[in-house]
C-alpha cells in the first residue's frame, strides 16, 4: 500500500449538519431541549386529556347530590364517609388480596411461559400467537366464558374434576374461593401478557453473558437464577407496573362473573365505586372512592418505579 495514500478528500466534509446554526442552538442545553421535545407530545397530550377529568372528579368529590339531583358543597364529607364505610375497607382488602395473588401468579407463570416460548424457537408464528391468545380475548367474553366453564352445575370444570374423581368445587359461588378463582381467571387471561413483555425483554438481553455463564459452569437453573432473572428484573418490574394499574382497578371479570358477590366477597373498590356511581347515582361519593383508588394505584406505581431504578443494571 503506497504510503501517503489519501483517504478522505482534502476538502472538509460538506454540508456539515447544522454547522451554520447559531452557537446557542448547538449546546447540550439544546440537547436537553431536544430530549424534552421528544417526550413533550406524550406529556402534553396526557395532560390535555386527563387534567379536566381529574379536576372535575376532585371537584365532584367535594359535592353531595341530593336525591332530587341538586348538588351542594360537602367539604370532606364524602371522605369522612369513606373512613367509616365498612364496604370501602372491605373493598380495599379485596382489592389488595386480588392484586397480590394475581400479580404473583401472573409474574411467576408469565416468566415461566416467556422462557418456555423463548426456548421454543422453532415454533411457527401463528402457534406462538395462540400461546398469547388469552389476553386478545375481550375481558368480558373471557368472563362470560369462565362463568360457564366454572359453573358448579353447568360447567366443564367440575365435570372434569368429577370425571377424574375429584370433589367438585363451588368456584365463584363460594365466598372463600371466589377470590382465588377470580385470580385464576385473571391469571389465565393475563399471564400471556406478562409473558409477552418478558419475552420482549429476553430478546434484548446481552447474549455474551450467557457464554460467560456457560464457561463459569452455571447449570440452566443457576443461569436463570443468577443471570437471566437479575437482567430481566427491570422488564419484570415494568410488567408488574403495567399489571398493577389494571389489577388494582380490577373490574371486568368480576363485574361479569359475580357482580362483587357472593355477598360482597369479591367487591373490589372499582366495582364498588362503579356501582355507587352508575347504579346508585351517588356521584359525589363515587368520585371520592375513585380518587382514593387512583391515589392507591399511584402510590403502587411510584413504589414499583423506585424498585425499577434499584434493579437497573
Amino acid at each position: 500500500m503506497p504510503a501517503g495514500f489519501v483517504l478522505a478528500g482534502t476538502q472538509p466534509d460538506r454540508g456539515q449538519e447544522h454547522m451554520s446554526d447559531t452557537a446557542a442552538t448547538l449546546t447540550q442545553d439544546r440537547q436537553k431541549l431536544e430530549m424534552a421535545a421528544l417526550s413533550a407530545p406524550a406529556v402534553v397530550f396526557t395532560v390535555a386529556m386527563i387534567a379536566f377529568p381529574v379536576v372535575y372528579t376532585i371537584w365532584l368529590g367535594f359535592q353531595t347530590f341530593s336525591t332530587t339531583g341538586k348538588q351542594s358543597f360537602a367539604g370532606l364529607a364524602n371522605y369522612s364517609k369513606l373512613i367509616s364505610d365498612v364496604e370501602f375497607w372491605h373493598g380495599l382488602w379485596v382489592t389488595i388480596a386480588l392484586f397480590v395473588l394475581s400479580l404473583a401468579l401472573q409474574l411467576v407463570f408469565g416468566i415461566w411461559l416467556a422462557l418456555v416460548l423463548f426456548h421454543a424457537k422453532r415454533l411457527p408464528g401463528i402457534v406462538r400467537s395462540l400461546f398469547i391468545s388469552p389476553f386478545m380475548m375481550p375481558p368480558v367474553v373471557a368472563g362470560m366464558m369462565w362463568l360457564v366453564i366454572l359453573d358448579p352445575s353447568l360447567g366443564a370444570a367440575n365435570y372434569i374434576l368429577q370425571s377424574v374423581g375429584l370433589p367438585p368445587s363451588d368456584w365463584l359461588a363460594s365466598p372463600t374461593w371466589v377470590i382465588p378463582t377470580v385470580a385464576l381467571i385473571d391469571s389465565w387471561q393475563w399471564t400471556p401478557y406478562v409473558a409477552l413483555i418478558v419475552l420482549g425483554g429476553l430478546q434484548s438481553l446481552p447474549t455474551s453473558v450467557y457464554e460467560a455463564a456457560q464457561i463459569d459452569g452455571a447449570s440452566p437453573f443457576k443461569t436463570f437464577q443468577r443471570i437471566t432473572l437479575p437482567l430481566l428484573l427491570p422488564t419484570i418490574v415494568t410488567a408488574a407496573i403495567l399489571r398493577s394499574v389494571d389489577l388494582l382497578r380490577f373490574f371486568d371479570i368480576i363485574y361479569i362473573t359475580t357482580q362483587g358477590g357472593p355477598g360482597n366477597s369479591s367487591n373490589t373498590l372499582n366495582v364498588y365505586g362503579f356501582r355507587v356511581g352508575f347504579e346508585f347515582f351517588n356521584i359525589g361519593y363515587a368520585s371520592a372512592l375513585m380518587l382514593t383508588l387512583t391515589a392507591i394505584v399511584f402510590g403502587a406505581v411510584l413504589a414499583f418505579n423506585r424498585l425499577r431504578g434499584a434493579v437497573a443494571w
Partner: protein
Amino acid sequence: ADFDWMKFKGKTVIFLANNNPVSQALLTYRADFEKLTGMTLKVDGYQEQQMRQRLVTVMNANSDEVDVYMTLPSREGEQFAAAGWYADLTAMAKNDVAKDYDPAGLSQALLKAATFNGKLTSMPMNLEGPIFYYRTDIFKKCGLEAPKTIKDVEAAAEKIKTCDSTVTPFVSRGLKPAVAYTFSNMLHNIGGTYMADGKSNLCSAKGKEALDTYSRLLRDFGPPGVVNYSFQQISALYRGGRAAMAFESSNELRTVMEGGARLKDTGLLPFPAGDAGQVPTTIGWGMAVSSHSKQPDVAWYFVQWATSPEVQKKMALQGIAPPRPSVANDPEYRKWIDEEPVRKEWQAALDVLATKGSSEVGYPIVANPQSREFIGQAVQDLILKQKPIDQACADADKALDALISLN
C-alpha cells in the same frame, strides 16, 4: 283530527335502545317508521348495563344527543324522574296522537308505574315478569300436581329431590342485584311489604317468612353456586333438563325453548300463591323522551309509533308480550299463540301478570337499585348460612332505613 305523520318530515330522531328482544323486534320495522313519517331514525343500541352507562353520561352532561331512550320505570323511574331526565309525556299522549293510537288501550298498571308526581314519563313497550316454569314430565313421574301454592312448590321440591336425584328441584335468581326481581313476587304473594310506615319492613313476620322461604328453596333445592345465578344460568340449567322448576322472567321463554328440548314437557304458571294470593311482579320496558331533547315533539312521534297498537301487534307476533290487552286478544296474535302449547300457557300467565301484577321490584324509593343490593345481600346471607335470619333481616333493615331516610 289534523294529525299528520309527515309533520316532521326530514327530521332525525336518535333512539338509545337497550339491545334486547323488545327493541330488536321493534327495530325490524324501523323502515316502516321512516316511510311513514319521512323522518330518519338513528338507533344506538347497547346491552342494558352499557346503555344505562351511556344514558347517565349523556344526561349528566345535559346533552341533547339522545331524543328517545328505553327505560325500566320499576327500577330507575323514581331516580330518573327525580333527576328530571324524563320529558313529561302527559300532554302529548293526550293531544298529539293519531286517532288510532288508543292511549287508553295500554296497560293501565304499567302507565301508572311510569307516572311520577303526576307526570307520565314513558310509554310501555312490553309486559314481562317472572313466571314459574316446571317440568310436567317430572311432576308426573313423581306423582305431583301443578303447584297451587308456595307450600306446594316446597313440597314438590322435596319430593323431586328423592324421586329424581339427577335434577335440581328448584332454581331461581341468587345473584345479589338480580334477586329482587323474583324475590319481590314471593314477598308479595306471602303478603309482605317492603316498607311500612316509611320504614323497611323485612323483619316483619311476613318479610322474614319470604326471606326464609326464598333462600331455603334455593339453598336446599337449588343448584350449587346458585348465589351467582341470574337468567343466563337459570335458563341454561332448565333448558338442559337439569332443573324441575324454574322461576324466571317471561322473556326467557325463547331462550328456554331453544333447541326444542323443553317444548313438550314444560308447564308455565304465574308464581303459585301465598297467603296473599298471587301478586305477580309485572314490569315492562318503557319508551321515554329525554328532557334534554331539543325536539320532544318530534321524539314523541317515534314513541307514539313504537307504542301504537299496530306496531305492538307486529311485535307480539315475535314473542314480545304486548302491554295492550287489545293486542293480546287480536286474532292474528291468538293464532300465533295457539301454534305451541307453551305459548298458550305463557300468555295465560302473562294475562295474570297484566291483571294482578305489581311493578314493585325492590323499594319504591329513589335509591331503588341500591335497595336491591340489600335485599340480595340478605338472601345470599341466608343461602350461604352466614347469618341467622333475624340478623340478616335486621342488617338489611338497618341499611335500607338509612337509604330510605335519604329520600
